[in-house]
């Protein structure tokens, strides 16, 4: 995968601690129609194909899988330490009695987060990406083989903590949800606009710390809206649960 940051070693990718076998890098789909009229030297071949087509095909497959099981899936993306796992723990605690929740945890190393999710009472699979900085559709496809999905359930994919690379990769999810925590600065939307642009929902977390910070929630929301006018924003605190009921209400309307 991300060779630039020293990875691509597919052998490094682990699902629940087990190495993922080398991934098939050949394309199965047929493009013979593209090359019909080209025989001469120095000839042009029209391709007109998305660069991430292979990923997107697997994402479509994941999407069909979710639809067949009536699973609503979210891809959570944020910087490391914004509170994704804590938010999930609270969500499982608050909604877990009436809603089946499963989690795919993405981290470079350790299964600490999957263990926390299981402790909180939900099914979880840990994907260790090795040096890679994002989850891709194939990793999710493999993880889904390990995760028994209940009908009418919620699946949260907690991406690797990174606000750049995960935004480009469709995992087959219904929507991307981004999280900015108040300790990060209210201009985060301006610094990472691509994430905001691809997100349907933004959670502004750790609002319990606002009295101690210079974070301006209004500014943060306005910048986010200017980047993506359709984004739905919930200021929340995973610690005190302030604002979470509004988020849950929205979630249940969209399941």
């Amino acid at each position, binding site marked *: *995968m*991300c*060779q*630039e*940051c020293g990875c*691509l070693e597919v052998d490094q990718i682990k699902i629940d601690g087990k190495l993922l076998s080398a991934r098939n*890098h*050949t*394309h199965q789909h047929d*493009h*013979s129609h*593209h*090359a019909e009229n*080209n025989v001469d*030297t*120095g*000839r*042009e*071949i*029209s*391709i*007109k*194909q*998305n*660069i*991430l*087509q*292979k*990923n997107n095909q697997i994402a479509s497959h994941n999407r069909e899988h979710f639809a067949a099981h009536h699973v609503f899936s979210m891809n959570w993306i944020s910087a490391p330490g914004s509170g994704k796992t804590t938010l999930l723990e609270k969500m499982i605690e608050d909604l877990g009695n009436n809603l089946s929740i499963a989690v795919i945890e993405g981290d470079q190393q350790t299964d600490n987060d999957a263990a926390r999710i299981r402790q909180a009472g939900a099914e979880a699979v840990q994907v260790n990406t090795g040096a890679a*900085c*994002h989850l891709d559709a194939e990793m999710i496809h493999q993880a889904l083989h390990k995760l028994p999905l209940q009908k009418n359930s919620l699946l949260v994919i907690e991406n690797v903590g*990174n606000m*750049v*690379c995960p*935004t*480009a990769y469709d995992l087959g999810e219904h929507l991307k949800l981004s999280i900015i925590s108040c300790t990060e600065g209210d201009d985060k939307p*301006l610094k990472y*606009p*691509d994430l905001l*642009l*691809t997100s349907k929902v933004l959670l502004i977390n750790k609002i319990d710390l606002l009295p101690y910070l210079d974070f301006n929630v209004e500014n943060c929301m306005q910048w986010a*809206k*200017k*980047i*993506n*006018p359709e984004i739905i924003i919930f200021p929340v605190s995973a610690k005190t649960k302030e604002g979470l009921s509004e988020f849950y209400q929205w979630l249940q309307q969209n399941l």
Partner: protein
Amino acid sequence: MHELSIMMSILDTCQQEAEKAGAGRVSKIHLQIGERSGVVVDSLKFVFSMATQDTMAEGAELEIDLIPFEGECPHCNRRFHASAGFLVCDQCGNYAKLIGGQELNIKSIEVED
């Protein structure tokens, strides 16, 4: 950050298309990259010569069309280049719809025998 892996996907596809066409060499790769695709064009160019080394695209030309980040205003119907990164109409100030700038496409390749 992930431009080299993006480039590897590009080369993977180009090589397959070239082989399918019975070509021995890829002499040019033509891409369309949106301003807001999350991919840095300069980084793509930077990794290109390294990534193509010892492949059938070694020495190939890389042409990149940068597709502008454009919005369309639902109120005044103005189509504009959102150069500041905001989907806010530069004429009437209303929120606009995204209409372009997230492309990540291989348009074509040129091959030789």
